Structures are given as structure tokens and as C-alpha cells.
């Protein structure tokens, strides 16, 4: 682990700051905003539609309504680390793309306001709506 990340992680655990604060800490980071952007969908709809879809998804799944929960769902442990390292964001993004593809492959889809979406990209919309609320 790089020295800087090690310090950050240690500091979190030292003060008992959980994932929630971690999210707070990173929510303003441009990188995270990128992760909240459903890439394919944003070619088709503007940001206000994506926000609306995000809100509609959260209505369908109220249990997921929280940036911490969503980020956890969107990113694996590995991605958390990558975020902390603030490196290789492209890889993280493309992993999300891969998850979206896997969702479609495995029928892990959700219909939000008529859109047939991968659950991962619906969560991205939800995360987007929270970050931009």
C-alpha cells in the first residue's frame, strides 16, 4: 500500500470514521462524480433525466437510498482502495462498464420509468441524483 493511502486508511480506523465519512470525504472528488455518470445512458439523456431516473430508482428501492450504500454497491473493495489511491480511475470506470454488461448478461435488470437498465447503471443514476441534489 502506498504510504499516503496507508495513512488515510489508518486515520479513518483510528478515529472510528466509517464508510459514511469516507464517502463524505470523497464525494466532492471529481473522480467520484465520474463514477456516478452512467456513460452509455448519458449519450442518450441529459443530466436532469439521469437525475430523475436516479430518484425514480430510489423510490423503487428505498433501502438503497444513501450515497454510502450506493457507492458500496457500485464499487468492490478493490475499487475503494483504488479510490483511496486515487489512481487508475479509468480502470475503475471500465470495471463498472463491465458490471453493466454482466448485469445485462445475467438478467440483472430493472425497469425505471420505462427504461430497461442494468441495475448497476440504475444505481449510478441514483448516486448521480444524490451527488447532484
Amino acid at each position, binding site marked *: 500500500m502506498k504510504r499516503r493511502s496507508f495513512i488515510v486508511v489508518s486515520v479513518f480506523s483510528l478515529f472510528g470514521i466509517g464508510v459514511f465519512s469516507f464517502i463524505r470525504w470523497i464525494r466532492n472528488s471529481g473522480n467520484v462524480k465520474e463514477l456516478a455518470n452512467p456513460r*452509455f*445512458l448519458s*449519450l*442518450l439523456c441529459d443530466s436532469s433525466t439521469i437525475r430523475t431516473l436516479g430518484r425514480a430508482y430510489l423510490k423503487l428501492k428505498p433501502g438503497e437510498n444513501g450515497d454510502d450504500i450506493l457507492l458500496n454497491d457500485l464499487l468492490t473493495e478493490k475499487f475503494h482502495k483504488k479510490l483511496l489511491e486515487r489512481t487508475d480511475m479509468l480502470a475503475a470506470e471500465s470495471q463498472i462498464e463491465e458490471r*453493466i*454488461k454482466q*448485469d*445485462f*448478461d445475467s*438478467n440483472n*435488470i430493472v*425497469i425505471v*420509468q*420505462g*427504461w*430497461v*437498465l*442494468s441495475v448497476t447503471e440504475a444505481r449510478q443514476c441514483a448516486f448521480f441524483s444524490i451527488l447532484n441534489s
Partner: protein
Amino acid sequence: MHRDATKLENHSIIEGDICIVGAGMAGIAMALDWINTPYKVILLEGGGFNVETRMQDLYQGKNTGQRYYPLQSLRLHYFGGTSGHWAGFCSPYDPIDFKKRDWIEHSGWPIQFNDLLPYYEQAREIVEIESSNFDFDYWKKKDPELESLPLDKKVLWNKMWQFSPPTRFGSRYKEEILKASNVHLYTYANVVNLETDDLVSNVKQVLIRNHAGKEHVVKAKCFIMACCAIQNARMLLASNQQAPNGLGNDHGLVGRFFMDHLEVMTSDLFMPFAKQIKLYYPWVYSETKVRAELALTDQKQSQLKILNGTASLMPKEIAANKSPNIDTFPEDAVATVEMWEEMNKLRGHENFGSPETYNCKEFELFTRMEQAPNPNSRIRLDSERDELGVLRANLDWRLTSIDKRSIRKLQEVIGEEVGRAEIGRIRLKEWLRDEENNSDWTSELGGGWHNMGTTRMADSPKKGVVDANCKVYGLSNLYMAGSSCFPTSGAANPTLTLLALTFKLSKHLKENVAKNFKSLQKAMA
């Protein structure tokens, strides 16, 4: 040979070996197939050679169920029948359409796809399409520009369609019929009643009438009703002198199971990177030879427990200017036929543009879904009579929840597929979004003008009106021709298949029935 029944002496008796009632697509196909045989064929056509309002009025009836097209203009009552209306879209039924599917009540034909296969070639010929090969790979070889979307073949496949000119049977085959020495065509010969022997075991004769007030009798050894699905049922029900519930109706099945295809805009498809969509490009009158619709595989239908269906891609610009068929189909059949003729003259001058002219990134999906067989969807006799004294038809078209669920599922599957292939996303139309609601329909829903099922084929008289040879149960010499015999509606338009079935019936009659005509005549005497 042709006679106008209004000009015959009143109460004439006409006699022949076989009598085909109705000179529409099925009736003409059958008659052509009997030219140069040693049999005298009587072909009875209710109308004349042109569309007339008073003839169409005989088709007037009530729609009491799901919104449907006006009955008086839905079918054409003249020589050539509804080929005067049809658009010429042709594709065969799929093998699964004939099978018993345990998730669809009343599904399963007593014949299978392979039984019909040899007759599709004859059907192809008569509707003047290029090939009886409907495989994508075959057409791709002919035109390498036909590029398929990257679909998972286990989920969706390219169902190919070919387009008849469209052949108008009335004009295209008139000369051939008139010249045939053994085919005796009678126009203005409306069958109003089928009369049986006292035991109601065979049809002795049919009674014909016309607006000139003339009434004649036609005797034959064998009768084939080819009047279209609504009229076939209506005629059986109205022939109730010897059998109070109508002919072939001991089990109350005549007129039931009326089906059409559910045709409607169902979703938006966005494909931001789409370039080549020639394969799916909307049909252009008189230009398009072949195109594909996205169709569900057997495996997927079975897994999702849904009906067969297809979806075609319509560029947004075109869809935006298209009103639902159900809103625009006119009540006046004569005006409609004139409109088609005007369109014919304009052919070659239209400016539809080529696929490249359209923004091919946004489409609407137009779904064509099989309707599940439903005994409550039916034709009954109304209390009113037409001008020739026959009780009018009352259509109660009814849909069920599997119909709507299947339409929704098809969209979801396409949505999953374009998502998986990373080429697009789908947005369902508002009326399809509530998964719990499988009963309310959009007002835009129309049928495909494809009437089917009213004298369905089954392997037992308790389940259907006709047997595997289209013979009416209980009557030794009465046959039904056309889509009234279809037990299920399939996803494709019906005419190619109804013609194949007609040619199958024709062969059966020649090989198994006509050769017994002499002994039959003796027995009937």
C-alpha cells in the same frame, strides 16, 4: 366460365362436383389448383368484379369488445376478396406456432410445420414473392449489406419477410379463372344458407341470393367455405334450419377463439452508434424485397412462458408522422380501395428516402404479437339482418393478460440484448410500464387486420370445429378454407400460411375425396 347470378332465371339450379364459396385469396387459390382436372368446379362469389357499397354493407356488423376496425370495410366483398386491401407482407409461421406449448392454453395444431412446408412453395408462387427461403443467411449471401445487429442467437433472431407486389387476386387471376373450362364462376352469388340432409351429416345444397331479388340453389358433392374468418363462422351459425345452433356447432365452438395479431408501438430504441440498418429498414412500397424483424427464439418463449412475437424498427421521424392504424382505417371500403389504387399510380414517384437519409439512432419498436387463443373472444350472430336476410355478425374481440405480458417481456428481452451488446437502450411506452397491470390497453392498439380462429382445427370435435384436413366435424362433405381454421395465430401475418393450408386441403380433396365422387353421388341419391 363466368355467369352473373343476377341475370340467371330465378330459382336456377346449379350443379357441380365441388363448390367453393368465396372468391377471395383462399377461394381463388383453390379454384386455380383445380383447373384442368376432370371435375366441375363451381366458384361462388357474393360480389362482382368491383368494390360496391351495397356489397360491403352485407359485412356491416357490431363490435362489442376491444376496439376494432369497422367490419364493413375490414374485408372486401368482391372477386379477389381482401387481396384488394392487403399490403403483401409475407413470412411463414414458425415451427413452434404449431406445437402444444404447456404455458399457453388451447395451443397446438393437429398438424405440424413440416406438414405445411411443401405447400408454402405453391403459396409463394401465387403471391409472387421471390423465394420460399426465409433464412437470414440466404438473403445475406444475396445482399452483403444486410448486416445483423449483434444479437445472441439463443435469444433473438432475424425473422425475414418478403413482400408481394402486392398481388391483387381479382385482377391478377381473373383471366385465368374465366378461361378455365371446368371452373364456373358465379358472381353476385351470395350464399345465405347451407342445407343439410335430415341427419345433419352432409351438406346437400347451398342457397344463394342477390340484391336483384334472385334466389338459386347450388348442389355439389363437396363444399368448401372460403369466405374469410368472420364470414365462415357467420355462415355456419346462420345455417340453423336443421341444426338450431348452426352447423358444426354441437360443442358451441363455432365463432369462438377469434384472434388477430396485436400490432402497436411499444417502445423507443436508442442506438447512438448505429450505422447500417438496411436489414431492418422499414418496408418501402414496391421497393423493399426483404427485411427482418427481431423475433423471440423458441427457447426464450418457453423460458419466459410467453407468446410468439416480433418487433420492427421504425425510425423516429417516420414514427412521428404515423397515426395508429386503428384511428385511421376508413369506414368506407370503396374509398379505401380507390386510395390504394391512387397509391399504386404514384409508385416509383414517392420520395421515401433511403436508409441513409434517416437519423438511424432513434427508433420506435412496432410489435406484432401473437394473440393467445381465447374462447371468449368470439363472433356471434346479431339480432339485425342484412339486406339479403342473414343475421349480421357481432364481434366481441377479447384479449387476456398473457397477451400484454408477452408484449412487455419482448421489449425487456430486446432491452437486455441491446444492452448486453452495448449498442443501445430501450424505453417502454407508458402503457406498458406497470408490471401489475396486464388488463388495460392503449387506445392505439389495433389488430393487424388478420382474422383467425373462428372454426379452429383440433384433433377432437370437443376442442375444435374442423379436423386436421379442415373438414367440419360431423359433416362428411363440408370443408373450411382459410385462417378461420388456425388454432393459434402465430406471430407472422397469416396469408402465406392460409394459402399453404388451402393448397394442402386442395391436395387432400383431390387425392382422397374427389376419387370417390361417383360412389358419393350414388349414396347421396
